[in-house]
């Protein structure tokens, strides 16, 4: 029963994908919407049912092997799914938030002609299927299938409006940058397979590997994770990925796919915990990315770009959490982030839709009155992401920062500065969009109906109260999530931290980060209360930052120019002179041999018999000479 239900969860979106993909030219808007949303909704209901009926407290996860997948030689990989506390959490996020975004999309994409509309939903369903496979896979192979599947869907959906060249380029960029990470991920899988002979998660244990192996594998896995989760060095694809439809950005590039890296590292926390160097590196990468992206978010004028950089920055916090061994904190932040970032994107989508695809925040302002529901929801999300208590973001970020402090206080300082920046750019965005007076030139701006607003409201509720999932004990909470994940993540990391530093200190840390967040929020509100002036100022600052801290030049210098030189060398000299000659000679040799061999086939039976007899004689001679020689030696 459980096996069947668990299988149904990813299977339903797959069926939806197949149905929509095959009959996309024949079905209407209603059918497509019902099939797409319905499959995800049923998957969500099943996930809920599983969540409430399965006991997670025993330490053996539910692993169901459906059929032998690859059984060759001594490699035995089954198609098996794993359901435990960690996958349960992700399952609920993906199907739940995914369902809301599906519903939202039915209105958002309504301007498309029917086949396009159905195609969009088929891709979206395929994405949900791949993502579920990624989460449920009990071994690296299944995870990797999902991993590649979500990459493919991301590519397809970024380039959904493929008539525009820029969008295609963005899609290509995302796909190619991810490929770099995927290659390294694949190498790590092969390495594991070579050393352990198995790649199922429960069987992987660092005690069976040498420390070099652990280090190498975790570093390769980390590079793979940075690709999918848009961390330094593979981050520049995510801002460009905003070319896709806004619900796609909400689902794929904010709530689910980009957290796959975090999930993967959490899933293999046993392995990663055995490699302190890698953990430190993860923390550094997370911190650097968080700061770097937050600063870039300060000056973006495209509403979706701001959110994209903010996503990268928040993912940085999740990595920081992982790096300081606060796996629960990272997962907690994934959950709250899924709520408020999906909400921010859907809110942005509502604004964009109302303004007829205007995305520049310089041309917005004063939308408070015109889009009241969107405004309230967006404000709640801004408060949540900025880490203002008692909204959800506060709790998750605080948990990560707390753990960071006990890991390394310097990291904590940087992290708090990043949190301040977050509050600043979010309220810059908020002020520019909602307060003041309208600077654009469009008439009759209003919200597009309850289908748009309902997901916003639901997500707003979740963003507000999501923090209760894991309220720390010092705030009279009972740390439900940590207790829930205990069976997967082993130690309750926050209790360890409690032992490390006194409660007063924890209060103090909490107070400091709250004060920083609130003061930068107020600062932003003050500066941008008169947006006209604020925008005109600060040209030089903006220039430096818009140049992405010279990152563009950096990429150009370190990657692009040497690559161009190398490709020139390869193309003009090695390819032209050497390889082409070689290929040509292979072709010539093949056709020469081909002609010669055909000559033997001249249609005369007596010739054939002579050749055959010759063959037999040669074989016999060889046989007996060989045996003679062999015998003389033995």
């Amino acid at each position, binding site marked *: 029963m459980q096996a069947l239900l668990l299988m149904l969860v990813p299977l339903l979106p797959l069926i939806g994908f197949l149905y929509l993909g095959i009959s996309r030219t024949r079905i209407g808007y209603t059918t497509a919407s019902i099939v797409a949303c319905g499959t995800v909704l049923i998957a969500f209901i099943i996930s809920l049912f599983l969540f409430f009926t399965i006991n997670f407290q025993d330490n053996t996860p539910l692993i169901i092997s459906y059929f032998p997948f*690859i059984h060759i030689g001594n490699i035995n990989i089954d198609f098996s799914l794993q359901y435990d506390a960690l996958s349960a959490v992700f399952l609920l996020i993906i199907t739940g938030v995914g369902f809301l975004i599906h519903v939202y999309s039915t209105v958002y994409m309504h301007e498309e002609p029917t086949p396009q509309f159905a195609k969009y939903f088929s891709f979206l369903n395929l994405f949900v299927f791949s993502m579920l496979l990624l989460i449920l896979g009990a071994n690296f192979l299944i995870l990797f299938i999902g991993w590649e599947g979500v990459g493919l869907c991301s590519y397809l959906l970024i380039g959904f409006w493929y008539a525009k060249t820029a969008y295609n380029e963005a899609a290509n960029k995302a796909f190619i940058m991810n490929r770099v990470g995927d290659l390294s991920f694949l190498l790590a899988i092969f390495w594991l397979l070579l050393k352990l002979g198995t790649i199922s998660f429960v069987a992987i244990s660092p005690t069976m590997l040498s420390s070099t192996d652990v280090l190498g594998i975790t570093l390769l896995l980390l590079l793979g994770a940075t690709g999918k989760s848009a961390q330094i060095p593979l981050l520049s694809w995510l801002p460009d990925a905003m070319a896709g439809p806004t619900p796609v950005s909400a689902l794929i590039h904010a709530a689910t796919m980009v957290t796959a890296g975090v999930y993967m590292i959490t899933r293999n926390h046993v392995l990663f915990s055995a490699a302190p160097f890698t953990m430190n590196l993860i923390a550094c990468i997370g911190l650097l990315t968080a700061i770097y992206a937050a600063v870039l978010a300060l000056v973006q004028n495209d509403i979706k770009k701001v959110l994209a950089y903010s996503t990268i920055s928040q993912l940085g916090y999740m990595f920081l959490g992982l790096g300081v061994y606060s796996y629960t904190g990272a997962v907690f932040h994934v959950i709250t982030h899924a709520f408020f970032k999906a909400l921010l994107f859907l809110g942005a989508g509502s604004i964009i839709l109302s303004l007829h695809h205007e995305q520049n925040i310089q041309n917005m302002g004063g939308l408070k009155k015109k889009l009241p529901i969107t405004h309230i929801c967006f404000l709640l999300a801004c408060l949540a992401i900025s880490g203002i208590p008692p909204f959800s973001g506060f709790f998750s970020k605080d948990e990560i920062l707390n753990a960071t402090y006990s890991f390394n206080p310097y990291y904590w300082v940087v992290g708090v500065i990043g949190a301040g920046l977050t509050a600043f750019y979010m309220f810059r965005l908020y002020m520019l969009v909602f307060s003041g007076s309208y600077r654009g030139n469009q008439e009759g701006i209003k919200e597009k109906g309850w289908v748009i607003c309902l997901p916003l409201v639901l997500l707003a509720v979740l963003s507000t109260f999501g923090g209760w999932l894991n309220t720390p004990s010092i705030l009279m909470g009972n740390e439900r999530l940590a207790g829930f994940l205990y069976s997967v993540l082993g130690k309750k990391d926050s209790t360890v931290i409690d032992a490390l530093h006194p409660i007063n200190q924890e209060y103090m840390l909490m107070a400091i980060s709250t004060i920083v967040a609130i003061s930068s929020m107020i600062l932003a509100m003050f500066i941008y209360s008169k947006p006209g002036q604020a925008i005109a100022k600060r040209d030089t600052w903006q220039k430096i930052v818009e140049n992405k801290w010279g990152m563009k030049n950096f990429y150009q210098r370190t990657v692009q120019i040497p690559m161009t030189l190398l490709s020139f060398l390869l193309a003009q000299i090695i390819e032209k002179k050497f390889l082409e000659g070689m290929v040509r000679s292979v072709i010539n040799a093949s056709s020469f041999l*081909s002609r010669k061999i055909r000559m033997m086939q001249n249609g005369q*039976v007596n010739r054939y018999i002579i050749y*055959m007899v010759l063959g037999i004689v040669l*074989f016999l001679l060889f046989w007996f000479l060989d*045996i003679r020689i062999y015998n003389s030696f033995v």
Partner: protein
Amino acid sequence: MNAIIIASLGAIILMLTNLFFRKRSKLLSVFALLVVILLIVFNTLEGQGLLFFYPASLNSAFFQFSNFTYLFNNVLILTFLIYILLNKNYLLLINPDHSADIYALLFFVMTGCFLLTSYNNLLSLFLGIEIMTIPLYVLAGMDKKNQKSNEASLKYFLLGAFSTCILLMGITLLYGATGSFALNPFNTLNTTKLLGQVGMLFIFFALLFKVGVAPFHFWVPDVYDGTPNVFTAFMATIVKVVVIIALLNFINALTPNCIGKSYKTIVLFVIISTLAIGNFSALSQPNVKRMMAYSSIAQAGFMLLALYALNDLATQGILIYAIVYSLSTLTIFAILNKFSLATFSDFNGLAKSQPLMACFLTVALLSLTGIPLTGGFFAKYYMLSATFFSGGKYALPLVIICLIFAGISAVYYLKVIQAMYFTTPPVTSDHASITIQPLATLEKSILLLVVIAILFLGIFPSIVTQWLYF
């Protein structure tokens, strides 16, 4: 045992029906299908232990039935079923006066095939080979008014007679050395005994001839080219894989000590020269049918890797390879049936005019190339990994050489795909001379199933191999 008896009974009845059904008759194919279904049912039942007509004394003396035998027989019967379903209209067209004979001959060939999958004795081996090949000589010449068909028949007969001589010679020598026709006593055969050695090698060569690998492949292109399409499809699939299985049984019955170490070197040489000749010749063929003849030589080279590896993995591999290769080849020949002429340029723009046909053909060709997600990939993968794990210093070079030739084979397979999808057909009047018939509904649905099966095996190859062990 049931399969042998039912197939031969069916053949005899069909032969007699020629008295009553002189004209093309639908009833013939219905009856043939009925026999095929009986074959499946009884063979499966026998595999489960339900015996009918089963003289116990025959078991060890002439035949030996194992799980693999029943499984492979089922594969053969299913392939035969698909073959009949795809070609039944063409079987009636070749020679309308003798359509019942054609069916009868096909069933005789099947009888021979079943003998060859289960023989345990040199006499039953010989009987199987002859019962299988003599009807084939006739079938090759069935298109009586066509000179090429007659020529093919004659050539096949002459060269086949020659190889039969070698086979008989080998059997005689082995009998002389051991005093028995049974296969098992060879285990005690003294390796140095000249008679036995030569006899074994002669049988080996004669069977290699029937498979059609270098240097005994010369009959293949001429015969395949001249024989009517429908029978070429039959010879290139069912007959070919059966002989390879017979060969594998023969080698497996001998002890490693008895085959000696030169055996592997000879097989190595045969494989490499087969791959070289098959692939290089296929490269420059203007005609797709002749290209398929050479490609079948090259594919046989791959199947011979099982003879090199001789391990469990190779047994699984040959099973998958036989299925995938037969399905792909049957698909291609079913589509070739629709062409009056089949040069590469006749396929130009097929994707536009017959998209479904082009799609089926593409999957089959990709499968023969060994592209992942088609069964052909895993077939090749199994064979190569079996070779690799069999050990020996030549294993790795052999795998690399095979991979290179698989790469070369992509050239001529992809040439067809390229013509179908990326070349526009000529707009001139000679377009009218190229006639391509559309696929009938039955053929469409059968081909769809076949293509799905090919793709399915490309994703879950172990579904088939696990049958071996249950």
